[in-house]
């Protein structure tokens, strides 16, 4: 095993900041056929406010399950999950959580603008103001020329931008992303990776980003949460010793290569 990359360079530790998401001794069991499956076993995790945390692990390690726990879509069998000091469901009802799905999950009968505005329509805010904010969000995502395009008229990358705009339009404090760029081609993925970091800096939102890509996890995160499978558990939390204002070119540096190699070894051992 190589040396951990946090020994290569000093990293600003985000641990002193205000806690945003807190998981304490969380277990998730479910039943399948006539047996019980443990998706997550005794997971304890603190995510400070404003952190960009990437969740990396092989399939079946409970990455998506962890996101759904934080979103309040599923309840832990044991332990507790707190989001901004309250239950995930309460945080969700306060519009503190945005979620981006793997397949964009846009409504095909709505234009890009209408899809973004859906998030505001549902919470019965002023529709005019909601529309203005939706336009602003789509402009932030570089889609000002495709406001009235239907999803089938947009490319995969554009659809995912729309879904990010929809997640951000209600100004959430937490953005949960479940392998959002997995289905995109490499060039589009790289560009969206850079844009996501820019948006993260501009908005100060806390991001939990699930991926199975080593490079994506290393490039995006401040820390990488490595998960192991069967049952899903934390293998290691790896700090990312890279400068904050990095571009995708940083992948060509030896520091990045060392980090990626370390993560890859961990993934192989975990799978």
């Amino acid at each position, binding site marked *: 095993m190589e040396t951990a990359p946090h020994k290569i360079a000093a990293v600003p530790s985000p641990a002193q900041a205000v806690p945003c998401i807190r998981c304490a001794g969380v277990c998730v069991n479910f039943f399948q056929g006539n047996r019980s499956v443990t998706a997550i076993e005794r997971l304890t995790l603190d995510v400070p406010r404003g952190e960009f945390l990437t969740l990396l692990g092989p399939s079946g390690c409970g990455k998506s399950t962890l996101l*759904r726990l934080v*979103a309040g*879509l599923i309840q832990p069998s044991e332990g507790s999950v707190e989001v901004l000091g309250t239950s995930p469901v309460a945080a*969700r*009802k306060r*519009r503190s*959580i*945005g*979620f981006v*799905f*793997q*397949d964009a*999950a846009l*409504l*095909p*009968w709505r234009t890009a603008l209408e899809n973004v505005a*859906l*998030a505001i*329509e*549902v*919470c019965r805010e002023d529709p005019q103001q909601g529309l203005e904010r939706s336009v602003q969000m789509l402009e932030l995502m570089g889609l000002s020329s495709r406001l009235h*395009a*239907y*999803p*089938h*008229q*947009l*490319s995969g990358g*554009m659809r995912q931008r729309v879904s990010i705009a929809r997640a951000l339009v209600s100004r959430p404090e937490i953005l949960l992303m479940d392998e959002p760029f997995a289905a995109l081609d490499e060039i589009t993925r790289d560009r969206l990776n850079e844009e996501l970091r820019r948006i993260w800096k501009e908005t100060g939102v806390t991001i939990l980003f699930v991926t199975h890509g080593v490079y994506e996890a290393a490039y995006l995160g401040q820390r990488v949460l490595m998960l192991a499978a069967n049952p899903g558990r934390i293998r290691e939390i790896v700090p990312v010793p890279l400068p904050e204002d990095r571009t995708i070119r940083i992948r060509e540096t030896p520091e990045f290569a060392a980090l990626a190699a370390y993560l890859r070894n961990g993934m192989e051992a975990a799978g």
Partner: protein
Amino acid sequence: MSSDPNLEVSPPSSTAAFEAYLARRRKEAIQTYALPVVGIAILLFTWWAVVAGFHVRPFIAPSPMLVARTLFKNRALLFDNLIPTTVEAVGGFLIGNFAAILVAILFVHVRLLEKIFFPVAVMLNSIPVVAKAPILILIMGSGIAPKTTIAAFVCFFPTLVNMLEGLGSVDPQVMELMQILSASRTQILFKVRFYNSLPYLFSSMRIAASMCVIGAVVGEWIGSTRGIGALILQATYAFDTGLLYSAILMSTLLAGAFFVVIAYFEKITLLWPSETPH
């Protein structure tokens, strides 16, 4: 609508290749409309050839010319009888589909009711129309009501099955999204489920468009003196094959016209691509 989002639509330069493309498009369009006419012409010719060639007598089967003459001569009679059938078919279509949509919405929200009553609906549906008709005529008399009810019954089941599928088959990620947005069940129904079910609804309505005419005609067979169904019976007993074929043609045209209307509404409503099997 271009399927490739990266292709900007611009007026193409008038090249020879583009002219050839336009000519090919025109040819395809002409074929789309002209070839069915050729098919109908072949059918009419074969019909005429069989009747004339085998000297089939008019009370067994009429020639196309006899049917055309009868259509023109009895146009007032045919039209008078087409009206009640149309009213019954359209009324049954609206009632049957509306009831099916309401029941499907109820079933999707209260799954327990679906488990209790869906098998009952399957059983009632398996009774043949010709067996349902006498029952309804005994209960409802010989007016327009039993025929409309039969037409409604015929439309009800396909729409119920399709609407249950359409309202229930929302992309699980979209359902999770609505949950994260803390949307109410009413919002999910009107903003997601309803739109998701539209392709399914149109698919069943296209079937119902011709089925409801059949329902109305069968209802008229059992107990009626007016309508296309009654006319078919009277013409048969009188060996008036010209009138019989004319009446059948009228009911076919009615079903066809109804189908075209539904297809038109589908075209102007469903502006997004859907993968519903037709």
